[in-house]
């Protein structure tokens, strides 16, 4: 059951924030920043950059909240638009696109899995070995696939990457994504379609190579 505060919509929280209510700003930040942070993290693959972008997005909201027009879209779309602009500016300044798999946690997990598989484990009779650091083969495959998908997303053109992240990872509707990207719904749909085709192609192309390496050793 939602609390009273959780039932308050973004528009009311924003008005209270503009009136100087710090608690309303805090609640609004905690409600909306995770999606912004994830978007920046998926786009950049860099935790520090994602935090910087998140901070800049909400700094902009604090200073220019009056620029938000409810008639033009949701607050969430407004914030994603700001995040997108900040990311583009950072890339323009840095002049490089950071590849995705720089997540230390993900790497540690994969290394731990590999170490556990090498030590061996007692079987429970079903062929699923379990040990302190060992995960099941399915989980390993899942982690590996996730890593490959993340890598593949990082190689997409920026417009396609944005469409995949917003529509597939953040589960936005076409309309919400269109508002965030400031483009028509049809454009979002076609970009997503093309992006998925490219991702499927990349993942499919890697599979024969992986099967060959597995057989070989």
């Amino acid at each position, binding site marked *: 059951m939602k609390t009273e505060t959780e039932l308050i919509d973004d528009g009311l929280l924003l008005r209270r924030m503009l009136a100087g209510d710090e608690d309303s700003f805090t609640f609004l930040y905690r409600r909306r920043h995770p999606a912004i942070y994830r978007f920046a993290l998926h786009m950049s693959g860099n935790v520090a950059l994602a*935090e910087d972008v*998140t*901070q800049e997005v909400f*700094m902009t909201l604090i200073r220019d909240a009056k620029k938000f027009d409810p008639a033009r879209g949701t607050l969430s779309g407004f914030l994603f638009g700001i995040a997108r602009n900040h990311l583009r500016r950072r890339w323009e300044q840095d002049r490089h696109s950071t590849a995705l798999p720089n997540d230390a946690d993900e790497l540690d997990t994969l290394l731990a899995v590999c170490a556990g598989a090498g030590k061996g484990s007692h079987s429970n009779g079903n062929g699923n070995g379990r040990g302190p650091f060992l995960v099941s083969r399915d989980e390993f495959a899942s982690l590996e696939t996730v890593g490959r998908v993340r890598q593949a997303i990082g190689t997409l053109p920026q417009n396609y990457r944005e469409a995949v992240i917003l529509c597939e990872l953040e589960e936005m509707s076409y309309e919400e994504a269109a508002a965030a990207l400031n483009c028509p719904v049809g454009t979002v749909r076609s970009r997503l379609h093309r992006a998925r085709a490219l991702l499927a192609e990349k993942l499919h192309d890697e599979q024969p190579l992986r099967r060959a390496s597995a057989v070989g050793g």
Partner: protein
Amino acid sequence: MDCVQFREIYHELDRPGTSGFIFRERALAHAEACAGCGALLTDGEALDFALRNLAQQRDGSVASPRVEAALLREFQRVKHVGQQRRIYRQLAILSTAAVILLALGLGVHYRIVSKARNTPPQVASTVVKPAAETPVISATPASPNSSKAALASNTQSKPASVNPPDDNEYAEEFVPLPYADDPAALEGGAIVRVTLPRSALASFGLPLTESDGTDRVAADLVVSQDGTPQAIRLVSQATPNSEF
């Protein structure tokens, strides 16, 4: 459904509100019948699975608390600046209003004062209508000490018209003043009733009269057209004139 239509919608079969969601059953039926489209569907489902896993992996990701702390500091700073600006704006509005009111007040005051200065003083009709009678000027000139200035400083003019001495008054003959013009030029002049200090009579060359208890005497002045007194005569009141 054909393969072209399938390829357009197969990536959104699970997305509500899309054409893929609407034609989902037809698309699945086509995929079962078409190997190529079936393979596309399988790849798409595998991609969906991977994307969902990726999304779940990041689901709880949030920025570190330092970000929130920095934002709250900025919020407080902007709020403080905003309050100061509001105060300054109110002060500016009040100051502007005060200046405008002050300017209006000064303007009104200046207009009132200017009007008062420009209004000519009400001259109680001191000089007056032309002489009702031809002044008779005696041959005895006034004392050389008499002067126009003494006349001006010691006389008080009687307002309203000057009439010839009435039954209650006794007037002597006009005595010309030392600087008097040719008597023939007095035509068109006026006779002005004045009151003089008794002591001023000597300056006009007139003998001091016996005091009747008042220190002022009534006199008639003959004034030429240019306003210069030409002659004077004393007017005695049968009853004291309390006018001055």
